[in-house]
């Protein structure tokens, strides 16, 4: 188990998440992809923490978890409120402010 394995895992998760963010049109699926992006960063933080032998990376993972929880709560509240107005979660129906 070399640090490069963590790079491969993190890169794969990040590219899968980015693909989802670009391709999907369902807001819930977009949020799933965003969580994957945050998790790929966590993988590298844990890997570097274990490489350097100190725990600062793992402490940072803790903060990323808290921010992810806050983002999920506020984002889902916005999505549920939007669904109540438009009866849709497709991003192409929310084009009111598009130039």
């Amino acid at each position, binding site marked *: 188990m*070399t*640090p*490069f*394995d*963590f*790079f*491969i*895992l*993190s*890169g794969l*998760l*990040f*590219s*899968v*998440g*980015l*693909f*989802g963010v*670009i*391709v*999907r*049109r*369902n807001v*819930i*699926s977009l*949020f*799933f992809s965003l*969580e*994957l992006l945050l*998790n790929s960063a*966590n*993988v590298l933080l844990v*890997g570097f*923490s*274990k*490489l350097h032998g100190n*725990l*600062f990376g*793992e*402490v940072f*993972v*803790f*903060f990323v*978890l*808290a*921010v*992810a*929880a*806050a*983002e999920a*709560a506020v984002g889902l*509240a*916005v*999505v*549920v*409120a939007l669904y109540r107005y438009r*009866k*849709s*979660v*497709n991003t192409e129906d929310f084009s009111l402010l598009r130039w």
Partner: protein
Amino acid sequence: MREVFFYLFAFLSVAFAVISVTHKNVIKGGVSLLASFVSLGAVYFTAGAEFIGIVQVIVYGGAIVVLYLFALMTMDLRSFGREPLRVISLAAGGTISLIIFLSVLYGGLKFTSGSIRTAISGAGDIALPLFYKFLLPFEVVSVLLLVATVGAVAIGRREE
């Protein structure tokens, strides 16, 4: 043994992540996202980050994914409709993802030789830097969580 489990769970987490991003049914996508997060927790366990693995399973698997599934319960799944797949967005997504993946690998080329120190870091080991060196960020995070809770309630409130 440790390496076998590392590769097994890393493969599982990436496979379930692919399912959760590409599946048409959002509920099935959410459940496979849960499987992906639990597998990632197991990956942290094999690397020795014991506390982070536990917190990953509790917070991501137990709180965030369940929050998504609860929000999905309030919606009508049949009204979601089909998403048209456009060739241009598929091509753009694939190209950008591939570029990002290759650049992450290029950045990791310097680290092909070092070895991971798999000493187990439990809650007591993490508490020392968390409550001394990073005490101020920890307190700020508590304010952030409070603001997020109040904001979520304020946005989700039904207008009278």
